[in-house]
């Protein structure tokens, strides 16, 4: 490699080390960020199937007002495990460890993340923690909901300790990933890629990584205290021994509110890549989208107590938490506005990925608006602990994060596998999912307004019609997800060959072969501008040999 390609922080970036040999080193204990990312995706989707089945148990139970599908005790276990798995084993690993690992180093023009070994360890903690969590079914799974408020979580069976240990471990994995990503993005960007030229997906990961690092450790402390109290009787949360159950709520939500942004910011990032690509137009307000992610991450740490308006929080604290929460609507609104303006006047290609991206914008905006409702103290008093809350966060997490994950899967599947997913099946997936999703969760808003509490196995017969509507719609949603898995498995072998850049993307990841070589780039390119200026020449130099058969100088400069 020529000496001119050496960048200021250079020796590391320019070095290609020999390809690992053997199946185990290449695909099991791989150090390659792309393989590790795909491992995250596969594991995450397996847990997604389990969590989805649990969701269907919930909806089937609620088909009739008297329940009867499972016993009330089992029902408690089912919704607790559904929530815990969806948050910690599905969405967070898929969207940070999965897509973050596969795409982020490619987009910044790096050969790998900063600490490949740490990355491998982060991944392998995840399936172990997942199995630990599911093993709690054998000893009486946790029953107090995914939030596990004491004193109930102190009184439940041994599965709750297992829950705490498993979530603690998955938190360690998240923290390590966060550290890894921050260092990678700070130190390993290609020459010329200043922060204000970095693709928006990377900006989203840059906003998310500190949340992973800081918020998750706070949760670790809360979980450790819960575990210690349950196993050794050391009082933290038990009010009869001087502890405080409200303290758990503070510590839990200090993590779990930022966790909402951990789950949705990377989806924002993917949407910001997909919309300009399929509208064939520069993204509107690049800097505003980038900085609003940072603003959301920062504000996310200051609003946790809005989950606790009915927990005896002092009135003089309720007002600032309400106002700070309202403030988050501003950077979020900036994003929604920028995305809409990106579409305006664009030449829009409605691929499956684009459908999911546009669907995301609408559904997330809807969920965001009900979030503003809930932030208002008097309204929250009325609907706290009802199905309104359930509907709200499913609009944000399913209509938002999960739609983002689907959009990202259709978008990046060709980069990861070299083959396109089937568009016809994909469009069936989108429309069935979109209709099924809205049918499932839209009625829950008025069920909640009318006073149907969440987490109950039986309910007042007056709510029967809309619950049936919701359950039947959820079966449609499940069917659509089945189509998605069939599509992915089918396309893995039989999909159309994608070529390096099937969508006409302009970020660095699209300028190299699909799937990329283990070393990503033959030569680290130099970056001269923003990636989103459609219609102008690409702002990169040094990519000429990427798609040719020119040899790679392994272990040399």
């Amino acid at each position: 490699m020529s000496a001119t390609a050496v960048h200021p922080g250079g020796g590391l970036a320019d070095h290609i080390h020999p390809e690992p040999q053997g199946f185990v080193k290449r695909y099991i204990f791989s150090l390659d960020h792309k393989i590790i990312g795909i491992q995250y995706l596969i594991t995450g989707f397996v847990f997604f199937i389990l969590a989805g089945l649990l969701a269907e148990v919930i909806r089937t139970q609620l088909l009739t007002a008297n329940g009867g599908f499972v016993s009330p005790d089992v029902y408690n276990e089912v919704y607790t495990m559904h929530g815990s798995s969806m948050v910690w084993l599905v969405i967070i690993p898929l969207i940070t460890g999965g897509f973050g690992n596969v795409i982020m180093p490619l987009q910044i023009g790096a050969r790998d993340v900063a600490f490949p070994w740490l990355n491998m360890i982060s991944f392998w903690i995840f399936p172990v923690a997942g199995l630990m969590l599911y093993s709690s079914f054998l000893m009486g799974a946790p029953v107090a909901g995914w939030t596990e408020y004491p004193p109930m979580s102190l009184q439940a069976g041994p599965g709750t300790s297992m829950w705490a240990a498993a979530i603690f471990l998955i938190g360690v994995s998240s923290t390590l990933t966060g550290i890894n990503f921050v260092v990678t993005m700070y130190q390993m960007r290609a020459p010329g890629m200043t922060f204000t030229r970095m693709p928006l997906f990377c900006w989203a990961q840059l906003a998310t990584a500190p949340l992973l690092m800081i918020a998750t450790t706070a949760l670790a402390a809360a979980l450790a205290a819960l575990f210690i109290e349950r196993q050794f009787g050391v009082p933290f949360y038990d009010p009869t021994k001087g502890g405080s159950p409200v303290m758990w709520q503070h510590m839990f939500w200090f993590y779990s509110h930022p966790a909402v942004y951990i789950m949705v910011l990377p989806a924002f990032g993917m949407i910001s890549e997909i919309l300009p690509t399929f509208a064939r137009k520069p993204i509107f307000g690049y800097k505003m989208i980038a900085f609003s992610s940072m603003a959301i991450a920062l504000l996310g740490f200051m609003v946790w107590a809005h989950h606790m308006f009915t927990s005896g929080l002092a009135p003089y604290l309720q007002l600032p938490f309400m106002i700070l929460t309202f403030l988050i609507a501003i950077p979020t609104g900036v994003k929604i506005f920028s995305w809409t303006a990106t579409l305006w006047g664009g030449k829009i290609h409605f691929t499956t990925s684009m459908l999911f991206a546009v669907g995301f914008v609408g559904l997330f905006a809807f969920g965001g608006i009900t979030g503003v409702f809930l932030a208002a103290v008097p309204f929250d008093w009325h609907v706290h602990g009802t199905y309104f809350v359930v509907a709200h966060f499913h609009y944000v997490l399913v209509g938002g994060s999960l739609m983002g994950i689907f959009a990202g899967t259709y978008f990046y599947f060709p980069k990861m596998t070299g083959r396109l997913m089937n568009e016809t099946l994909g469009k069936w997936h989108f429309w069935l999912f979109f209709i099924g999703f809205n049918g499932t969760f839209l009625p829950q808003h008025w069920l909640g307004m009318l006073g149907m509490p969440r987490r109950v196995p039986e309910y007042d017969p007056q709510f029967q019609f809309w619950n049936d509507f919701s359950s039947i719609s959820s079966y449609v949603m499940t069917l659509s997800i089945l189509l998605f898995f069939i599509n992915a498995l089918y396309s893995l072998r039989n999909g159309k060959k994608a070529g390096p850049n099937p969508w006409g993307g302009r970020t660095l990841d699209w300028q190299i072969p699909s799937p990329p070589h283990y070393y990503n780039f033959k030569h680290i390119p130099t970056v001269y501008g923003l990636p989103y200026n459609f219609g102008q020449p690409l702002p990169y130099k040094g990519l000429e040999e990427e798609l040719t058969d020119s040899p790679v100088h392994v272990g040399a400069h």
Partner: protein
Amino acid sequence: MAVASLPHGTAGHDGVDQLYADTRALRLQGMLLFLVSDCILFSSFIFAYLYMRNSGQGWPPPGISRLDVAFAALNSVVLFGSGATMHYALENWKHNHFGRYAFFMLATIVLGIGFLSGQGYEYTNLIYKEHVTWSGSGIFGASFFTLTGMHGFHVSVGVLYLIILFLQSVAGVYTKDKYFGLTAGTLYWHFVDVIWVVLFSIFYLI
């Protein structure tokens, strides 16, 4: 990790090759971020302690006497002293004075063990003379033993870490220009010191 074993590198300033400079920058930032997240772990428990302390039953709670400030202060001096010796150890390494480095490094390890012994003595006194225990003394025992125990665990890990670093430096793993391990060890040790400043203040002084 592959990067560390690479023999190649473009010659940079001061004869340190560029590859090492890059690796060092990555690891330094990684280490600092790890310490940040560790700091949050302590902060969360400190929050829990202050929250429970302010729950209205007075502090220390009825039936428990105040902690012995004099002994803890002496023990703190031992730990802060070890921070100073650690600093001199690294400085002497940078200036290639191996003998003085070894002296200060061993002094740090001895002082670290001294602090842990002091903590052990204090625990023994509390548990056997004053009958204050982890699980049997309400929120006082819970917060005191959890936080100081967590800190003590960090000191123990630190002592082991320093012993390993010392053996590595004797075995010639580090050179005058390439000594990231020693930098990381020093950072960790200072971090543990700083945490103790906070714990000492909130448990013994206020």
